[in-house]
């Protein structure tokens, strides 16, 4: 590939030349401004709170909490998803504009976690909406969520929007 890249620092750098792909530019913009929907379901919601706090400070990665799904690129499902809440989560997800991403945070939203025998708990958020990154833990530390966010940025970096939609979107 003729596209020249400089070493990626925080936020990433793309050397613009006449052979640069527009994809790289778009991806750079998308990965470094992942606004996420402020949405704590259960215990993990408290770690989401600490995520925005001074120590973890997720905003340095360009991820800023938004209160409305219509302004969000990313939804972090943080906590136990009950059946009553599941339809609301689907509604919120559908209200988000494309392109949209999902991070499933914690055992409960990954697979039901501790509440395997509970009659009211949906065993995994991927039964309702497609998930891009799973973060394990009960609850995961804020650092683990940041790791999940960086993985998501990697996924976004590899996307080729000009030619086709990303594979995860195609299989939906």
């Amino acid at each position, binding site marked *: 590939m003729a596209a020249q890249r400089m070493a990626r620092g925080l936020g990433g750098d793309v050397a613009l030349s006449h052979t640069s792909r527009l994809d790289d530019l778009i991806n750079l913009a998308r990965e470094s401004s992942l606004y996420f929907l402020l949405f704590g379901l*259960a*215990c993990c919601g408290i770690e989401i709170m600490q995520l925005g*706090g001074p120590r973890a400070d997720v905003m340095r990665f360009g991820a800023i909490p938004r209160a409305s799904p219509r302004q969000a690129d990313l939804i972090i499902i943080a906590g136990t998803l009950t059946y009553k809440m599941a339809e609301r989560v689907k509604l919120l997800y559908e209200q988000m504009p494309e392109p949209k991403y999902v991070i499933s945070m914690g055992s409960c939203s990954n697979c039901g976690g501790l509440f395997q025998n509970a009659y009211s708990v949906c065993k995994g958020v991927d039964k309702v909406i497609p998930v891009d990154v799973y973060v394990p833990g009960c609850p995961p530390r804020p650092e683990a969520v940041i790791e999940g966010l960086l993985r998501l940025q990697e996924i976004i970096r590899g996307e080729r929007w000009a030619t086709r939609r990303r594979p995860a979107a195609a299989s939906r």
Partner: protein
Amino acid sequence: MDERADRTESTMLVNFGPQHPATHGVINFLVETDGEVLKRATPEVGYLHRSIEKSAEGIGYAAFVPFTDRVDYLAAMFANEGYAIALEKLLGVEVPSRAQWLRVISCELNRIASHLVAAGTMAMDVGTFTGFLHGVREREAINDLMEELCGARLTYNYHRIGGVAFDLPTGWRDKALRFLDHFDKFLVEFDRLISFNQIFVKRLANVAVIPGPTAIDYGLVGPNLRGSGVDWDLRRDMPYGAYSHFEFSVPVGKGFCGTVGDSFDRYYVRCLEMAESSRIVRQALETIPEGEIRARVPRNVRPDAGETFSRVESARGEMAYYVVSDGSNTPWRVRIRTGSFAAMGIIEAVSPGLMVADLVALIASLDVIAPEIDR
């Protein structure tokens, strides 16, 4: 929703929640408003019903302890302790005194952490993000202490049946004391920065007043009850564990900036309680006795048939466990009485006539969290 007789053409029905930053978790309020003035706000609960009580019936007694963490994740120590005390009563186990002291230390630190979140989110909900960041920063220090003590930041699983899981790590005592020295100064700073900030006071003083008798009628507990001027604290009035060995005062709402029982009183009682908790932890760290940290309890707990009831003063008020045993190795029934559920009941009664923005202050001042309501 049923048709109400007092609904007029100008009445608007708005859903507030379940996804809303100010609802403290997933709670839905059906808000009937006439312009900015509320006619009624009806809470709708159940969005976080994880059937914790039912889960208890399928697993062993000791295995239920991690589930109690999730009943109140901001103050998990108390939920652990209440269940442990209930089982100790049922089994007739005597808890070693070092374990009692460790329980007090961990619980009071947890109370500070929980109240920091309450005060911080209160500040955030009425419009100052700074207070929230300050609260979260201090809470992170407590999280570190807790992590060193029991390996978890949030869901501790520390109080076990018959004692506690781990002893104090080396050097923990000094770290805790260092934190408390810093924290006492922080409280003064927080008062200057947030609590007595004129804008903050104006948002809370004289808003959503709950008189003492009403608070008792609706079964409010803990700081919400004391904020209404009712002097009742389980730690002092019905001491459990090691609380009778410590000296502390119980802060009561006095109308610090307005009326007794307004949102500011409920908020400020929590701030004062943090200082008292810090006092208790200091005393406990000084007088902690040597010895065992856990009584001998069989791995497979199998109590005789019977029932038991325990109460602890949690950060959100009295938390009660009612456990029924049928002699097998799983509980027949576990019932958990929590403060937040009662607090939700009063919102519909207090809300008429409030402004929409005051509803947010009311919810924040009651310090409800969703899993305690729904369990």
